[in-house]
């Protein structure tokens, strides 16, 4: 099972990792390369902060973080913890998730 964390602003990827109050954690169970099951859970952070987000990512056993703007300090921290960070991305969450599942998600891209 793979876990992905996506900071949210409504139904879109939040522009800032450190300012997002809502977080989507997606559990992905791939049965074949194209088929699988996806479970989604939204958590609301009491006090949005990059540290809280990092804590959540580590605690939830996340393997990949998909976000837009993230400070280098926190990017390095997550990578140091073995969590892959795909940053500088924007767009609606469903489109982004679909691109990720299809192996088409790239950093520096707008999915609007």
């Amino acid at each position, binding site marked *: 099972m793979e876990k992905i964390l996506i900071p949210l*602003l409504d139904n879109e990827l939040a*522009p*800032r990792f450190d*300012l997002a109050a809502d977080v989507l954690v997606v559990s992905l169970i791939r049965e074949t390369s194209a088929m699988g099951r996806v479970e989604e859970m939204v958590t609301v952070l009491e006090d949005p*902060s990059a*540290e809280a987000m990092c804590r959540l990512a580590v605690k939830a056993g996340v393997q990949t973080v998909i976000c*837009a*703007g*993230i*400070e*280098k*300090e926190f*990017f390095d*921290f997550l990578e140091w913890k073995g969590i892959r960070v795909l*940053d*500088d991305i*924007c767009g609606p969450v469903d489109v982004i998730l679909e691109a990720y599942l299809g192996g088409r998600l*790239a*950093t*520096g891209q*707008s999915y*609007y």
Partner: protein
Amino acid sequence: MPAIDTQLLIDLLSHEEALTLLLDELPAAVALLDADGSVILVNRAYASLTGLERESAMELKCLHALRCDFCVSGCPLMVRDKPMEMCSTNANIISRSREKIFVRLTVSPLKDKEDRVRAVVETLTPLSHHILDETSGSAFGLGELVGRSPQVRKIFSMTPSIAQTDSPVLITGETGTGKDMLAEEIHKESDRNDGPFIKVNCGALPEHLLESEFFGHVKNALPGADHDKPGRLRMAHGGSLFITEIGDLPYSLQTKLLSYMDDHMVHPVGSHKGMRTDVRIMAATQHDLETMVRQKRFRQDLLYRLNVIRLNLPPLRQRGDDIRLLQDHFLKMFRARFGRPVERFSTNAERLLGSYAYPGNVRELRNIIEYAVNFCDGKVIRMRHLPGYMLDGHGLPEGLTAPQPEPPTPVGEDGTRAIPPERWEDVQRKMILDALVKTGGKKQQAAKLLGWGRSTLWRKMKHFGIE
């Protein structure tokens, strides 16, 4: 007064190319947005500041282009329940280089005769320093240099006239003497103070990254270069670039920097296109560049090019009464910052502070006072509140009473001390661990207890490898 050529103005403002050229000349970062907040046009300074390519910015919603904290804290573009008015605020953005940049942000609606918002102009000016989160950087106070000794006063008196020129400046001096502060003061006093003050430390970056750090790169020019990077020279457009530890700049890059200083054209790695920028270069070093030239480690022509204005900051031990002045200055600063009722130094503490050699110069004095204010349990800083290593040094004044008899130091087999003298770094590590124990591991509370910002605590924990 000559009549305004209205047609020329209309032509300038109604053609994208002419308007872009016009906006590019502005030192501030400017974005034109439509009434819904989508980007129509950005100028060169905006692209440099955000690290976003102009083409990628088009039609993006402003909040995704800028990634500003103001987007979620009351920006009139996001809050549409009342008529939009001009607003100006301090904010921060996250650039494509993952840097948090503090800015002055102005959002102004452009309205038609019926008072409808037709477009929005967004202007950003970088703020040079985020003071509140800085507790132990290289600053010697809150954006000010302090000193009364003749050597320092001479430098201070020269600063305004140096600031008014656009010539390169080379600042020399031992580590911790305040070279960075002086460069920033020169920038602040210059006509470039509306532009950015960008720092690059040649000693802190691996050699293979320095070229792209200075000059930027285009996408796929280097392994892992998944997007364009503007580089510090372009980020400093309209302002100043301060190069610290220039003696550590590799020889090949010295040539490239020299070429930039001659024609002001930036050539990003992997690009054939040059870009003109307007940047004042200031540099600093603690090394003797003349010796490095003789050893063929530094280009002589680059030294001549940088050496137009040369300032040498004296070491603290040569600044006489400045030690007293600075220790009082830092006492006031840390007393206010940590909210401690510390009032003064005891006579013995003052004698020790006055006689110590300060190999780390003003930075070391600052750290010593920060330590003392943190550890002082009363109103007077006594010998026992000063770091223990100060008593191990030479030049201790005669008759100075040691604060407390210390337990015998374990001695190794070869007769050396098994326990090294207490270092400020070790003390800081202890302080962090104590605070974390006291707060049950809660970092936010620990940061509050230490009088630090959360990100400072995070940074220091990372530095000391505390998980």
